[in-house]
């Protein structure tokens, strides 16, 4: 893509012990993050976790209570919002309703003192990248939601910002359009090599788009890692629950053998162990979590290592996979299996007795209070 204005310097973002308190509430609580030039980072978390406040602190719309924000080594914590030179896409699109599409996109160029005609040329160029050039002379009210969001995207990148901020940009769109836009944004971001921060509460959206995901909970970062690592090796029970689905088993540490905790889980026959990153002491209450796709179905009389007996409640087709819900002494658990040609799992019926099993390395143990 040849946007005429030259690309600016790298766009390395450093957030240092950043805090934002409202009265006695810590919306952002001592967050430190390093975001590399050209990286696409998702801030993921439930509503009220502080992700939007953090984004607004970076944008300059919210003044942090403490800490610092540096871009390419320069502190911007006290720089006024309009002098930060970022691009931003809002959940509500927030296009200027009294300006045509092309003037919306040309806005930041005009604010930098670019001549009207030149700014419009560049705006049309940016609109071309999001396939909106043919509608350049429409008014925003004449566009659909998806089209408005494309225009908002063009407006955010036209001045080649060092940082692109996306505040739940697709949550107002329907599912199909949302998926298409996620891929499109990802591609545009790769072409422009612009450092991007994407706020979302949708874990699958974060997985699809981001190079790294920062999972936020109650104003703190629980884990900052690649999507694969966050999924396979969640750092906390919160992350394990928030990213993907998890089966949960409650138990208590019986003893430790060679540093490995041996746990008695509710309803599980025999003692079991699992993988943990924290040191667990004897008598510690633990939660064992297990991905549905790592939960194996076995015949009821099968006995090879730890497992839990149960009765099939229902079998649900999810296209290429089957989700088998099983009632166990430890509650309802789910196992997903390939919908194979043999159809062995598809023949399961509710009421069938089965046994759920797993590999020791797939059961992740977290301490609970």
């Amino acid at each position: 893509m040849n946007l005429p204005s030259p690309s600016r310097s790298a766009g390395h973002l450093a957030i240092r012990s950043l805090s934002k308190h409202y009265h006695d509430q810590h919306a952002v609580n001592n967050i430190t993050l390093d975001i590399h030039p050209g990286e696409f980072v998702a801030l993921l978390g439930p509503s009220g976790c502080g992700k939007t406040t953090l984004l607004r602190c970076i944008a300059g719309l919210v003044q942090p209570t403490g800490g610092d924000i540096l871009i390419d080594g320069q502190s911007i914590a006290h720089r006024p919002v309009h002098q930060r030179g970022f691009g931003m896409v809002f959940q509500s699109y927030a296009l200027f309703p009294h300006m045509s599409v092309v003037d919306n996109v040309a806005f930041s160029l005009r604010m930098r003192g670019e001549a009207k005609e030149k700014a419009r040329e560049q705006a049309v160029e940016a609109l071309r990248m999001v396939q909106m050039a043919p509608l350049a002379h429409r008014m925003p009210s004449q566009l659909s939601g998806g089209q408005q969001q494309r225009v908002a995207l063009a407006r955010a990148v036209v001045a080649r910002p060092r940082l692109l901020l996306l505040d739940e940009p697709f949550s107002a769109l329907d599912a199909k359009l949302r998926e298409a836009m996620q891929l499109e944004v990802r591609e545009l971001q790769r072409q422009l090599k612009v450092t991007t921060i994407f706020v979302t509460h949708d874990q699958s959206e974060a997985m699809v788009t981001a190079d790294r995901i920062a999972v936020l909970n109650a104003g703190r970062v629980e884990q900052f890692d690649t999507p694969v690592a966050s999924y396979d090796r969640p750092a906390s029970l919160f992350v394990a629950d928030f990213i993907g689905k998890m089966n949960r088993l409650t138990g208590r540490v019986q003893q430790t053998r060679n540093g490995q905790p041996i746990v008695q889980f509710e309803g599980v026959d025999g003692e079991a162990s699992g993988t943990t990153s924290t040191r667990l002491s004897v008598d510690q209450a633990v939660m064992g979590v297990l991905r549905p796709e790592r939960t194996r179905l076995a015949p009821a009389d099968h006995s090879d290592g730890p497992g839990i007996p149960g009765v099939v409640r229902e079998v649900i087709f999810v296209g290429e996979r089957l989700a088998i819900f099983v009632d166990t002494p430890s509650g309802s658990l789910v196992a997903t299996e390939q919908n194979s040609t043999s159809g062995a799992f598809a023949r399961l019926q509710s009421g069938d007795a089965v046994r759920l099993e797993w590999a020791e390395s797939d059961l992740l143990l977290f301490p609970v209070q």
Partner: protein
Amino acid sequence: MNHFNLPLRFYVGAMVFFMLAPILVIVAVAFTPSEFASFPPRGVSLRWFEKVLNDPTFVGALWNSLRLGLVSTLLASVITVPATVFLVRHKPPGARALQTFMLSPLSLPTIILAVGLLFLNAKMGLGSSFWSLVAGHTVIVVPYIMRTVFAVYSSANAEIEHAAAVHGASPFAVFRHVTLPLLKPGLLAGAIFGFLMSFDEVSVALLLSDPKTVTLPVSILSYLVHNSDPAVAAVSTIQIAIAVGTLLILERLFGVRNLMFSSR
């Protein structure tokens, strides 16, 4: 809405009649050729319009009223717009009370305001009758502008202004390029209604004007004390025409209904 039943039709017809009848009588009388106001008029003539437009008292009063209305409306806009923007976006403590205070002239009889201004003017006068009138009428116009600007602005998305700021607009540029255009419909509607209120106002004008600053309604009132010829009807018709004209422009440009009845 197509099936109005008979009683409803009658009711609506009666309402329209009672609202329009006095105005229609005035307009009809203004075209009377005879010496005295009579209804229905016998024949059509423009002689009373000619008399009024050649009368320096009426013409002077008309100019005074237009000048007063324009200056008061402009001043009220300059005061009200920043105040409303601040009240809506920053919600300072007591915002609600402050807004009610700014709207209070609406529910206060203007004669009370006029008497108060008269005393105030005697104590610490502005020295000029015109500027005293402007002060009084500004107070009257403020609530009209506040109401419509408040309605339009509080329903506008604040993120639009944030978007402008993030994309390089200084606070003043945000106001000029985004905020002002956003609230323009409300400002224009309120300003035109406010102007009409000032143009029509008697109490304050009666007590604060001097022979040089007499306004049109005051001159009509004092003419009526000593005369009963159709000249008054002609001058009233001119005033009605100005009011209706501005309302038509307003309706054409923005739709009065949307603006006046979107309430606050």
